[in-house]
């Protein structure tokens, strides 16, 4: 006889949080084990997909269902669709935001399981309040409405409500916690949940207002500029708004943590969960049969649907991985303390068993009650034992660093939480500082990538720090969660139900669980390096190149400086100007330009447009014909030696594939003219002319920053080509608008900021170098133009204009470069 299954067979469940770790396992388990049971899932409405599409995509596609897929074979889809339906709604809004249809669906359900929660430690206070605190009551309110609706049809509506809470609401203090309502718990501080809700909402408003203070906004913009450089107004604005939102969120997290701690909770999660329980029981405890299920820390499955199944990167994983990578030397905890971990399948089974038991014996469940699903009392996993198991396992199965060397896990010393936190804070601060320094250096390419790696490591350490902050309180607690009621339920279950729904924490063998189930599962999910030997070049790059070089692509856009050649406008100017300086004056000229270097660089970094405008003034009064002649010489003797042959080969490959090629550069027309055969279109800077001389002023806005994206978009549109089928190559964060505009952005020898961005966004990165066998002059000096000094040029450029040019360029060199540079002097 199977009492639980019989009670549930053919029943209909309403489930919130089905896309989560616990929810997914619950849906699968009910489908697989409860005959003819149906489910209505609450799914947050998406913009494109219907709730059912989302349910299929986000829940049923999960490997949790692999076992069922195999069992059902071809009929899997139809079975699933016939037994699962989805309604749109959100536990963050009143009555879950159900429409009439949704409410009707709810009214036809027998059991409601509320497993939606925001479990992450860094939830902002107000979010945690809306979801964790108010969520259960909102679901209950919806159930009440559904019951009323059902009553009009002479039906009863939902019979039982099972909100999932957490064991930590009972206590984080020493001592045992019984399975009882919080009102009965002497340690639980009673605060008015309504006041807490109001306060949290008010605080959100205050923080939002604070974030809009001019000083703050200025700071956000500064940070955005630091990160992106001169990427253009639009991107900077977008980024600084994101920084503002992040700041608000962070503030709200801090506020939540402070409030929670002032009331004796480690953080906002158990605090809001506890108040959520209180709010629910106070409002609906008398009207609705409620059974609260409180699991402890839920981890990967012990046996169902298969050993080791886990969804998403759970909280403990980053800690374990950080430790295995040697990043986290220690984790706070009391050696003899108990780490209360419970496999997800036991929690799922407990929910189902409770539901079945409640339906089979409704009289037993008339008033609200509580079940703990925890291992600490029945089958304690001592902290020291866990550490030993983890350490041994990683000693036997080490992770490998990038060089293929095994990482030796550190000896565990069971330090206090404060020490570990300090350690981590120091590490993250050091890395942050290193990152900031490196970010300010004009480095690019491999070094910049290394720096992006630094950022990744910092993020991991930061995350670990967060988990230490969160979990520290839990591993350091000695609270023991009694499971008397759970075990009583287990005893009431007959053999058939017991075989189907294992809820006995005593059945878990921790050695097997840690060694053979949990750690291998984590390792598999975290994509860390588990084999020795240098990592082979990831075939991701090969795939990316294949994509880029597909005949389907339309346009390949290129930046010039440091993308196709290691040169810049200052080099070119120095070469062109020195070409007409008598040898005696060259040293002084170069010295002057070198001295100017830092201020030029600073100006360039601040605003590329200002820099070009002021720098190009130096060409004032220079003869046009002369520079056009010299441009060719410049190209063949200097620029070509600085080109990246791989870059030129790629460019030519694009042409061979029939892609349009376009050069978008802030360099001057007479400098890039020799490159014309490589491009279908060249967009560059042009100086105004008067009487055969340059005015030193740009004719129109130089094609830099956001202008590049617009130019590219205009070009694509006028030629009937698509940007999402196009490629852009650039080296600097100021090219972000162009890179973002295309479907296939490629960072070439990226400087630090772009390297970090490229890594985060998974953009393809190329490292192109100069040909090693070329002449590599230390200084970009033009050979003295003896030819023109000795006779008239056949193209009509006279020696007079040559002298004029030398004079003009020399004069400019000594002059301030414009307002922008003044403040950098």
């Amino acid at each position, binding site marked *: 006889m199977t009492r639980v299954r019989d009670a549930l067979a053919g029943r209909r469940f309403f489930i919130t949080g089905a896309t989560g770790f616990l929810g997914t396992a619950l849906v699968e388990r009910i489908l697989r084990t409860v005959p003819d049971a149906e489910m209505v899932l609450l799914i947050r409405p998406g913009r494109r997909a219907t709730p059912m599409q989302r349910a299929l995509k986000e829940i049923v596609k999960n490997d949790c269902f692999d076992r069922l897929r195999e069992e059902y074979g071809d009929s899997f889809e139809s079975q699933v669709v016939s037994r699962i339906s989805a309604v749109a709604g959100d536990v963050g809004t009143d009555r879950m935001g159900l429409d009439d249809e949704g409410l009707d669906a709810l009214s036809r359900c027998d059991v409601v399981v509320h497993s939606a929660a925001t479990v992450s430690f860094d939830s902002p206070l107000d979010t945690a309040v809306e979801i964790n605190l108010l969520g259960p009551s909102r679901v209950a309110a919806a159930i009440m409405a559904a019951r009323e609706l059902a009553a009009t049809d002479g039906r009863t509506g939902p019979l039982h409500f099972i909100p999932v809470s957490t064991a930590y609401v009972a206590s984080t203090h020493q001592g045992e916690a019984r399975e009882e309502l919080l009102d009965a718990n002497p340690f639980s501080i009673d605060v008015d949940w309504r006041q807490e809700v109001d306060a949290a909402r008010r605080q959100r408003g205050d923080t939002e207002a604070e974030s809009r203070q001019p000083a703050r906004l200025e700071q956000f913009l500064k940070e955005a500029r630091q990160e992106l450089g001169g990427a253009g107004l639009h991107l900077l604005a977008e980024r600084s708004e994101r920084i503002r939102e992040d700041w608000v969120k962070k503030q709200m997290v801090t506020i939540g943590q402070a409030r929670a701690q002032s009331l004796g909770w480690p953080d906002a999660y158990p605090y809001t969960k506890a108040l959520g329980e209180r709010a629910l029981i106070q409002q609906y405890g008398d009207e609705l049969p409620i059974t609260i299920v409180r699991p402890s820390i839920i981890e990967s499955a012990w046996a169902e649907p298969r050993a080791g199944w886990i969804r998403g990167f759970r909280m403990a994983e980053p800690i374990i991985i950080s430790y295995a990578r040697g990043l986290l030397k220690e984790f706070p905890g009391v050696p003899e303390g108990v780490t209360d971990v419970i496999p997800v399948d036991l929690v799922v089974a407990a929910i189902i068993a409770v539901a079945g038991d409640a339906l089979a014996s409704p009289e037993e469940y008339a008033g609200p009650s509580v079940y703990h699903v925890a291992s600490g009392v029945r089958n304690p996993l001592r902290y020291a034992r866990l550490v030993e198991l983890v350490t041994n396992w990683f000693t036997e199965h080490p992770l490998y660093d990038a060089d293929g060397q095994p990482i030796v896990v550190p000896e565990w010393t069971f330090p206090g939480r404060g020490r570990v936190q300090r350690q981590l804070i120091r590490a993250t601060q050091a890395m942050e500082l290193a990152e900031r320094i490196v970010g300010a250096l004009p480095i690019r390419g491999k070094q910049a990538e290394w720096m992006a790696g630094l950022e990744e490591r910092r993020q991991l350490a930061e995350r670990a720090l967060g988990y230490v902050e969160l979990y520290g309180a839990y591993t350091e607690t000695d609270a023991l969660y009694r499971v008397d009621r759970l075990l009583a339920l287990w005893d009431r279950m007959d053999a058939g139900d017991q075989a189907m729904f294992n809820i006995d924490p005593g059945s878990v063998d921790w050695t097997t669980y840690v060694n053979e189930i949990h750690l291998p599962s984590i390792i598999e999910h975290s994509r860390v390096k588990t084999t020795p030997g240098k990592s082979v070049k990831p075939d991701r790059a090969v795939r990316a190149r294949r994509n880029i070089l597909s005949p389907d692509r339309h346009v390949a856009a290129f930046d010039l400086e440091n993308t196709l050649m290691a040169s810049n406008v200052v080099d070119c100017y120095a070469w062109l100007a020195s070409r007409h300086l008598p040898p005696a004056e060259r040293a002084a000229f170069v010295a002057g330009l070198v001295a100017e270097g830092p201020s030029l660089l600073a100006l360039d970094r601040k605003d590329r447009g200002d820099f070009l405008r002021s720098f190009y003034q130096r060409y004032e009064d220079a003869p046009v014909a002369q520079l056009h002649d010299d441009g060719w010489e410049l190209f063949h003797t200097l620029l070509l030696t600085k080109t990246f042959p791989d870059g030129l080969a790629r460019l030519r490959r694009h042409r061979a594939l029939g892609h349009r090629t376009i050069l978008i550069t802030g360099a001057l027309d007479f400098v890039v003219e020799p490159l014309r055969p490589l491009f279908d279109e060249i967009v560059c800077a042009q100086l105004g002319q008067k009487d055969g001389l340059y005015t030193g002023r740009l004719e129109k806005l130089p094609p830099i920053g956001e202008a590049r994206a617009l130019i590219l978009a205009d070009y694509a549109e006028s030629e009937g080509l698509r940007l999402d089928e196009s490629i852009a190559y650039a080296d600097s964060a100021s090219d972000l608008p162009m890179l973002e505009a295309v479907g296939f952005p490629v960072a070439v020898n990226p400087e630090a900021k772009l390297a970090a961005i490229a890594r985060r966004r998974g953009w393809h990165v190329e490292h192109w170098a100069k040909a*090693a066998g070329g002449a590599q002059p230390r200084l970009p000096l033009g050979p003295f133009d003896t030819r023109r000094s000795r006779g008239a040029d056949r193209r009509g450029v006279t020696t007079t204009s040559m002298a004029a040019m030398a004079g003009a360029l020399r004069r400019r060199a000594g002059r301030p470069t414009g307002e922008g540079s003044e403040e950098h002097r």
Partner: protein
Amino acid sequence: MSPRPGFVLDVDSSTPPTLFWRGERFSLEKLPEGSRVIYAPEPLEPLKDPVAAIRHALTHPVGDQKPLPDLLFPGMKLTIAFDDISLPLPPMERPDIRQMVIEQVLDMAATAGVDDVELIVALALHRRMTEPELRHAIGDRVYDAFAPNGLLTQHDAEDPDALTHLGLTDQGEDVEINKRAAESDLLVYVNINLVAMDGGHKSVATGLASYKSLLHHHNPATMVASKSFMDQHRSELHSANWRMGRLIKESGVNIFQIETTLNNDTFPEAFSFLQKREWEWKARDRVNYLASAAALNRTPPRVARGIFHNIKAPHRMTSVQAGEVEAVHKITTENVWAQQGVEVEGQTDILTMGLPYISPYNVNSILNPILVACLGLGYFFNLYRGKPLVREGGVLIMTHPTTPDFNPVHHPSYIDFFEQVLTETTDPVVMSEQFEEAFATDPWYRHLYRTGHAYHGVHPFYMWYWCAHALNHLGAVIIVGGDAKTVHRLGFRSATTLTDALEMARDVVGPSPSLTHIHTPPILMADVK
């Protein structure tokens, strides 16, 4: 004391180690007893008064040609073409022979009242010369008189407006050459005949030709049939050029050929040990060797390269002859042989050679891997008359660092050839069928060749074809001290030391092989009996 002839040394236990070039460095290697080392003859005595000799040659032409002054008249169109940067090697100390000859020709032209004179660098598909290089070759006076007025041009094999198609040879080969040269009343060609391959009909038929014309003899089939291309009478390369040259003559192009030979005084005093026989090194030579070898080993290759490319050779002119092409060239060839010929008895199983920093195609540049192959298998291997120095199926061992470095200004298409062609095939025939045309007609390479200082896009293929005869003939090629990946890309084997290389060679040619080392530079020609 008259200069001693070339010499073949039999290595015995008392023989000191032998000098091997390794690009910008060199080393002394102990060769197994019983090996042979071939040394070039010592430098011949130069002409005492080269200017007088030149004037004499111009006024006393050989063959069916009039003295130069008789060919000059007012109102005529005179074109003087001359050899480019690839000759001589290393570039010679000032004054360059070209300057000396051209000044005399111009002097006679001025006397005759000729005012339409143009100078053309006979580049073929080579890179355009730079201003300093031109000034060095023809002197400042000539340069300043012509260049600023556009009267000094560099032949452009890709300029359709500056080429004239003269017809087809009896073998159906296109003859298309520089238009100005073809339409002149007189074309004076000034040669420096460093090796036996240079000069003759090849001067105009190759130096001033278009790609369309060149492809008839610059191809694998021709090169395999040129045994060697240093031996005019057994060289298909020359036969083709002679057919073309005769057609050029029949088309009415009046060529006044001037050919000159040099002695093999290759290195200035500080490096003179490089051209001496090791057992005759004096204390000073030893000190120079030790000092320069030690210094070079500590010098970055780039800097060492700069030092070597600054070397100007103290070559001196040993003969000058002018007149009708074939008659002139016959005398020249004899004079080249007089300086370079060495009689060698029989072939060898293993041929060793040290490759220096320079070849005709990397003056003021780097000897990239393709040029390494060409210098060893194309040039040095072919320095023979009769039979190749190494027997068929034998092994060639060369010492050179062979790094995958290229000059992007001079050799842009080489980079792509190395990355795109050699990764697919090292077979000259396959590459000529599958890849040559794309490179030859590539607009970017053409652009760089025409406006910059780049070799023509097809040039790396020619370099590889130059190796075709050796590749067919040899059992294996081993490079000692080269970058292994690069050496493998070339299709050769890589060894760390000469000893290792000899072990590897034994696997190919069998135990107790015979070994011959060709001690060059200075250049020599082996007359293999």
